[in-house]
């Protein structure tokens, strides 16, 4: 099992603050309305720490990290 993580966004909780794609562009991009799209996985130490930041900075607690 790899240590890589991906993300899941709770669509009903997410309100498009954008903190996830601001802190972690490797894993998140945004759509035309400003809502996040999960585009990748975090595998390096830096990416994993950025993903943790994305989870903890979300004001709606809408982001969680999942094992790939």
């Amino acid at each position: 099992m790899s240590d890589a993580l991906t993300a899941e966004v709770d669509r009903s909780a997410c309100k498009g603050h954008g903190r996830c794609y601001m802190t972690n562009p490797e894993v998140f991009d945004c759509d035309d309305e400003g809502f996040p799209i999960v585009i990748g996985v975090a595998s390096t130490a830096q990416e994993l720490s950025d993903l943790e930041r994305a989870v903890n900075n979300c004001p709606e607690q809408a982001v969680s990290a999942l094992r790939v």
Partner: protein
Amino acid sequence: MTELRDAATADIQYDFDIHDSNAADDLFETYAEMRNRCPVAHTPHYGGHWVATKYDDIHDILRNPTVFSSESVNIPGTIGQDGPMIPIEVDPPDHGIYRKLINPLFSPKRMADLEPQIRALVNELIDQMLESNRVDFVEAFARELPSRVFLALMGWDIADASRFNEWVDLIVLGKPGASEEEATEVRTAAAMEVYAYFAEMIDDRAGSDDAEDITQILINGTFEDRELTQFEVLNILFLFLIGGLHTVQGQLAHTVIFMAENPIVRKQLATDLSLVDSAVEEMLRWESAICPARLVKEDVVLGGVQLRAGDKVLIPFTSANRDEEKFDNADTVDIAREPNPHIAFGAGNHRCVGSHLARLELRIAFEELHRRMPAYRLDPADPPVRHLSQIKGVVKLPLIIGESI
């Protein structure tokens, strides 16, 4: 079990007036006292209303629009708007329909296209400031930038910035020292001029069809299967103006006051501009301008206090963001703070639609300011003057450029 408290309970009364600018200087002490003593407090002002000051309570209120309606977000109920400001004074499901139209206008990608233009506006203002070593930062920069950016975004004439500044000052601040009735009169008159300007912009676009023009997109906009009325377009534009000007102005000025008074933090930022993103978030947490209200739609208990249908509750974001239960050392600025899930832009359905634009303006402004004028200080003989109201801000900020404390 402790007894439920209500509007008549003596120990949750707190004499708090959101429009008393004399309270601005001690505001954080006031909110800290309320969070400790009566986190859901009752104040006698404006016919009596509630003030919730804890992060978790404010967060719950923001995410429960069925009970805590946005149909009236001001205390007192009007700032001169004619009908509800759209979409901030609209509840679900209609709110979501308007946001679907408006969100793309302020999307991060669309805002990123404005970056060169905003950077040029910022540098133009800095050029002018650097011509002298003493400026009023509000007049020279903080008030000018957001109104010019607003006009640039709309594709309207940037030369009209000073007219907008005057109107929005009157709408937000009313008439300091005047009676509530007189203040409302001043606000309404200014709002009427704003509507007349907007109506002119709408008329100018008759027959044109620019797919990128925001005014045009709104004119062509639909609500489900009908076209937006002119009344709706005007109230959407009115909100863009109210939401975009004093908010960013206050944020710029509050940050510069802090940085002038805290040269170690300022130097930390000026020598490592890669900190600007987290510094912007931290300053948004540390001083959050907006303090909206919600209208209680059904009897509900909040923090052991009985609220009744028809009550209004004020929810100062800046108090939530200083809550020690949510943020360690909440009263200390750490421009690398992690994590920082502040709610300066609100939370829930009404998350500030202009947040991506605001962040971009703040980021560019603080990058360029600290790159080009890394040293500045307050004038000890002429200290800054703050104002309260539901958008906290700074009236005057005399600054000495090129010196540091």
